[in-house]
């Protein structure tokens, strides 16, 4: 095999492996708001939380299940007893048991707000062996509502983010070099940076919202102690 064939093969392998994608994450609203609660502390010790991830056009049931598992783990790490629920066909997968009412019900649903991509640009990218980069941009909203067991709304927010996926060996190379030589670690764009940044913002806001809901619930009950639901931790969703 000659050198040029090897180069082309390497290029194709690189392209197919997805290594040439740079995803830029931009918080649009609420996600970049400062948060006080440290999600690594026991902020919900002894509380029962039901995390319900509602599938929709954008978030299909398996992805909602994955989201629920991760959010469940977030609250579990903060001392809560968490149940997860992914309603399918409008029906909850959770069987209500008397005396096991959750203290807080966290509903999560996702919406695709905007998507943009250029067909001709993708063709140009293919023709130039990704020297000319292509991109797909989309904005998503993660709606969060938190209620108490009676259904009273305690907190709600819509966390909006924008993602731009650049595709091209060139664009990836430029950013890889900048990340390696110029950008400080917190400003890096390649690798796990977008997932890390989005996760940090999303988890922080979710924890803060839930904590605010918890205090509001206490205030609206005039600080009366919560009814003890009893029962052990129970998982009706998929175990992470």
């Amino acid at each position, binding site marked *: 095999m000659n050198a040029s064939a090897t180069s082309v093969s390497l290029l194709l392998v690189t392209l197919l492996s997805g290594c040439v994608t740079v995803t*830029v*994450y*931009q*918080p*649009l*609203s609420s996600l*970049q*708001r*400062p*948060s*006080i*609660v440290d999600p690594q502390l026991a*902020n919900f010790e002894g509380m029962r939380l039901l995390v319900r991830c509602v599938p929709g056009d954008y978030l299909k049931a398996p992805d909602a299940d994955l989201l629920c598992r991760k959010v469940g783990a977030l609250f579990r790490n903060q001392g809560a007893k968490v149940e997860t629920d992914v309603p399918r066909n409008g029906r909850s997968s959770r069987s209500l048991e008397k005396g096991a009412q959750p203290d807080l019900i966290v509903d999560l649903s996702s919406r695709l*707000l*905007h998507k943009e991509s250029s067909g001709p*640009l993708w063709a140009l990218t293919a023709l*130039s062996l990704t*020297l*000319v*980069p*292509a*991109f797909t941009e989309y*904005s998503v909203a993660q709606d969060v509502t938190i209620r108490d067991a009676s259904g009273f709304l305690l*907190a709600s927010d819509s966390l*909006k983010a*924008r993602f*731009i996926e*650049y595709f*091209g060996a*060139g*664009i990836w190379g*430029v950013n890889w070099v*900048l990340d390696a030589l110029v*950008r400080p670690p*917190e*400003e890096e*764009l390649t690798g796990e940076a977008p997932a890390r*940044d989005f996760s940090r913002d999303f988890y922080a806001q979710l924890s*803060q919202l839930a*904590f*605010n809901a918890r*205090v*509001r619930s*206490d*205030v*609206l009950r*005039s*600080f009366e102690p919560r009814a003890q639901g009893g029962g052990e931790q129970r998982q009706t969703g998929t175990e992470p």
Partner: protein
Amino acid sequence: METLLVFFLVQLPLFSGHPYDPAPGLWHDKSEARNLDCSRVSQQRAHELHPGEIPAPPPRLANQSSEALLCTRRIMRNGERPERDEVILASLRESVGEIAEVASALGPGKLNWHVDAFYPQPEVAAKISVAARIELAEQGRRVSDKVPVLAAGDIAVLGRMAPKDAYPLACKRYFAQRALGENDAFLGIMLIDERETQLHAGLCLNGEWRWLR
């Protein structure tokens, strides 16, 4: 060298060819992008809001939904103020508006309203109470700038109590000491837990305390 130059030139039009795109990249870093609040609106609406920045949609594309990403820079950048103060102040209009609305509904008639805020930082507390007074006044309520005060001994005792007991007791003491009369309403706005980023409120009427939020 020239090949390398070509390589960079090809990247520029797409990756950095939109210097007005607020997403992190060559022109903006992440911390700068985090100081923006952005929303998607129709181009027509965006043009109405910012005629000097966003052109009107072409008439032939009027029927097509063209969107603009509208970003406004927050006045105070991240880290300029303590995080909790920033969140509380950034949403002051909304939170105080909600509190005043609920309080107005529960305290009808010709009441004289007094407002005070209980927040760890005095300058933020002053902002909260001023905002609430003005909100009530704009709703047509009779609002006083005077804040009822308790005796030093009462304050010392109340300061050692938990919020759930302190505020109802303070309300009783206001009434007992005639700092508040039958025609007076006292709206207290406070922070209950230092880890939260929301304001709570309670209403003191005739010596009875009621949590509103």
